[in-house]
């Protein structure tokens, strides 16, 4: 029987998967941070550059300050940042020195654990990023082995990556990251031992989303296969398209005889806090998911599908939904099986959509190998796809279908993008931005429109206190304040009566 540790993802991946990354504010996090610090989690998945952008854009909150305050409120549990190593907030590729500055500022603010996730498994890029993070002061660096089903992603493929991780002095451990929740217990029984065998004794973690209900079962098999850490969510931020529920996982693992050293009472307190917060803020709580066989083909997360349906409805093309979904599988194969993890689902979906509804009308569903016969396919190509083919996001896992490659690159826009000047260095950025700003502000202004950063600064410091129980009262007060003077207010319920009146 094994000793299993937990990493909680509620604050980052839970919030991103279930609440579009916009649910949690600084105060929401600070209120529960001291308790989360004591549960016994090995680390917390805390932040990504996307989440930092959302803090600025949606909440007008300083994400750097959020790190510092959270660090102060939970000094004992490492906080994790996840990133690709080549971009910061914006989708553009960043100068390596900009990325170096990002990591240095993150470490200074209180991040110590870093996940390097290259969506194409370009291990040379991963190792280079890991070296930069280590130099910036990152103490624990984890490489992502992003799981997917495709013609090229076999056990041997992942074992090969594990061997590169084993050989790197700058990568401390690895995790199997299953963003779409495709891993079955059967596949885990071959995949995980194959990875472990080549990992050189470095610890292995597992991070599998619950999208089609498989991961809670995979988690029960994982400890006996050699996984030391399971990544989980808490309360309303578990299940659904997030990760398995911490309390349920702990109970099941213990039932199987494994040891999980966490404080159950505190874990329940954290779960209950997120439940109450979800209720108070009208945010959906994650629910256990039914199995969905079709999902294994398109691998599109729920959020992307919802967006597609909305876009088609706006165009009056709801009937095309099935055709677009088929096209997604085709485009993905032609582009060399990019893993359906940000930014690729949006990219593949965009291309599939324009292949089906864009162009000059030749919208006959053509089989993958006869694709070149269709004039409409790849007639319109989004910039994202051109950049991908040009290698801006790393080397594609498998070669791009040659005719698709030619078709995409043989256009003026592709030549324009290929001739784009290289990204700006911090010194060059500094010349273009207001004088005397801090590195933190410089990086925000690099990654986002300046107006957003100005608005954040104008909003002042973020609130630091939050209570779900108080929200109904605050809402009542806000509503009362927005109405003509109320002369008499009575709240009457069993066992409670509050009466306010003017003297």
């Amino acid at each position, binding site marked *: 029987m094994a000793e299993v540790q937990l990493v909680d993802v509620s604050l980052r991946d839970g919030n991103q998967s279930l609440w579009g990354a916009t649910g949690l504010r600084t105060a929401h996090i600070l209120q529960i941070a*001291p*308790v989360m*610090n*004591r549960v*016994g989690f090995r680390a917390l998945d805390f932040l990504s550059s996307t989440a930092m952008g959302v803090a600025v854009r949606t909440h007008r909150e300083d994400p750097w300050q959020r790190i510092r305050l959270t660090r*102060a409120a939970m*000094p*004992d549990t490492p906080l994790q940042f996840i990133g690709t190593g080549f971009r910061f907030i914006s989708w553009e590729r960043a100068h390596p020195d900009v990325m170096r500055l990002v990591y240095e500022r993150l470490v200074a603010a209180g991040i110590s654990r870093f996940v390097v996730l290259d969506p194409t498994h370009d291990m040379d890029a991963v190792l280079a990023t890991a070296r930069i993070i280590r130099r910036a002061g990152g103490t624990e660096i984890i490489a992502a082995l992003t799981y997917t089903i495709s013609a090229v992603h076999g056990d041997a493929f992942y074992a090969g990556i594990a061997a590169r991780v084993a050989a790197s002095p700058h990568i401390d451990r690895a995790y199997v990251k299953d963003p779409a929740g495709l891993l079955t217990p059967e596949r885990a029984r071959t995949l995980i031992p194959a990875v472990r065998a080549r990992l050189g004794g470095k610890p292995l973690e597992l991070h599998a989303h619950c999208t089609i209900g498989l991961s809670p079962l995979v988690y029960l098999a994982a400890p006996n296969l050699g996984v030391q850490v399971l990544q989980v969510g808490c309360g309303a931020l578990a299940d659904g398209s997030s990760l398995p529920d911490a309390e349920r996982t702990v109970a099941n693992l213990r039932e199987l005889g494994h040891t999980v050293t966490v*404080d159950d*009472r*505190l874990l329940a*307190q954290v779960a209950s806090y997120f439940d109450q917060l979800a209720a108070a803020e009208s945010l959906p709580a994650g629910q256990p998911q039914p199995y969905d066989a079709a999902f294994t083909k398109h691998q599109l997360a729920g959020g992307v599908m919802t967006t597609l349906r909305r876009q088609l409805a706006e165009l009056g093309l709801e009937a095309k939904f099935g055709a677009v979904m088929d096209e997604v599988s085709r485009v993905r194969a032609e582009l060399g099986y990019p893993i359906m993890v940000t930014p690729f689902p949006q990219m593949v979906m965009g291309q599939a959509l324009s292949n089906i509804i864009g162009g000059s009308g030749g919208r006959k569903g053509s089989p993958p190998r006869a694709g070149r016969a269709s004039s409409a396919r790849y007639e319109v190509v989004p910039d994202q796809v051109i950049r991908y083919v040009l290698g801006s996001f790393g080397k594609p896992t498998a070669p791009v279908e040659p005719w698709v490659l030619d078709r995409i690159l043989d256009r003026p826009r592709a030549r324009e993008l290929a001739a784009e000047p290289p990204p700006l260095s911090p010194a060059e950025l500094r010349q273009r931005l207001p004088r005397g700003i801090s590195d933190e502000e410089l990086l925000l202004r690099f990654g986002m429109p300046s107006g957003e950063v100005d608005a954040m600064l104008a909003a002042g410091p973020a609130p630091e206190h939050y209570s779900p129980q108080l929200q109904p009262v605050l809402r009542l007060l806000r509503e009362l304040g927005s109405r003509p003077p109320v002369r008499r207010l009575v709240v009457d319920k069993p066992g409670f009566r509050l009466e306010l009146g003017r003297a």
Partner: protein
Amino acid sequence: MIIRRVLVANRGEIAVRVLRTCRRLGIETVLAVAGADADSVPARLADHTIRIVPGGGAAGLAAAYLNVEAVVDAAAAAGADAIHPGYGFLAENPRFARACEAAGIVFIGPGAEVLEAAGDKLAARRHAAAAGVPVLPGGLVTAEAGEVAGRIGYPVLVKAAGGGGGRGLRVVGDPGQLSGAVTMASAEADAAFGDPRVYLERYVSRARHVEVQLLGDGENVIHLGDRECSVQRRYQKVVEEAPAPRLGETLRVSMRAAAVALGLHLKYQGLGTVEFVVDTEREAFYFLEVNARIQVEHPVTEMVTGLDLVAEQIAIAEGRGLRRSQASVSFGGHAIECRINAEDPADGFRPSPGTVAGAAFPAGPGIRVDTHVQAGSAVPPQYDSLLAKLVVSGADRPEALRRLRSALARCRIDGVATNLAMHRALAADEEFAAGGVDTSYLTRWVQREPPSVRAEIHG
């Protein structure tokens, strides 16, 4: 280890303060209560309460919180894995710390050896000297008190070796008064601390009281800045602030370094304070004593550092070690605390027990109120008279003072006499506003206030 359930062995505002942090950390709380405290605000805030057996009668009520065995038994019965003693009562009692250890309960405070070293004022003086901290000339009073005093030079201060808090303290101006003062002080010390030993120290006539907050894990010690506590009456602090205003940077840096040196010498584990007397005429400082507990005035330090000192105490008790370096402690702004007591300035500051008829406290940015008092709260005569601490902070001292005046104006406590009006008048006083007053300031101020202000204070 992780502390899951804490017995809070105290009452009043500090009980509320400790309960708040425990709740924030997700720690279950059990409050030890005696007598009418079972109906107090802290009793309602705690997850559970447990009665500690009073020794009988009114005196017995206060004795309950001082009863080592009763408190340890209560903690064991409540299934607590740690005890937070607050300040006063058992907070610095080495026998209590040992009893906790024997019962397998974590005492949230320094070890018994440090409590002994700090509690015996003469031992503490020796440790300070050994750590290279300046101490005032002085020594234990034996048969040759006159000789010691002669060597130090008059005026001298007669102090109790067994405890602090102003009890057993006497200032002696000339040799003729010495023997009587020593006898009186010794009797008072014996009554208060069960230890008749007294010692002499040179009396600094123009003195400020400045202290340095320490945090240590037994190996490493850092300071959390200094506090000014010179506004005192009969050695009882009334107003405190952080940082100490108008203190030369060299002096400030030396005092902080001296405090850390003493902490390292003592292998200090937990939260503690090194008190100094600052000789304003000589620009020098001398060791006064070590307070091995959380102090009443800790909120001013919390407001300028952003730290939760009770949480730090708990972390050290859990063996987590110091979680921050000296360099990572940052100081920002200025904070001032007023102790609002149930006492009547018109009647020689006599305690004024009773029942609070109504209480309204201010709220807003930079305002914090630590209190256990609301309408209906009992103010029993057996305990100290502290009702509330009004703490304000600002970007600088002038802003903190402005907030203080405005916050005090919005403070109201009915049903018992309080020193609120005195605080309002103090906050408006020019000498106080200038900063850096000495320990004789408050007594002088009370005497010199014009009748109109005195009427306001006393009304």
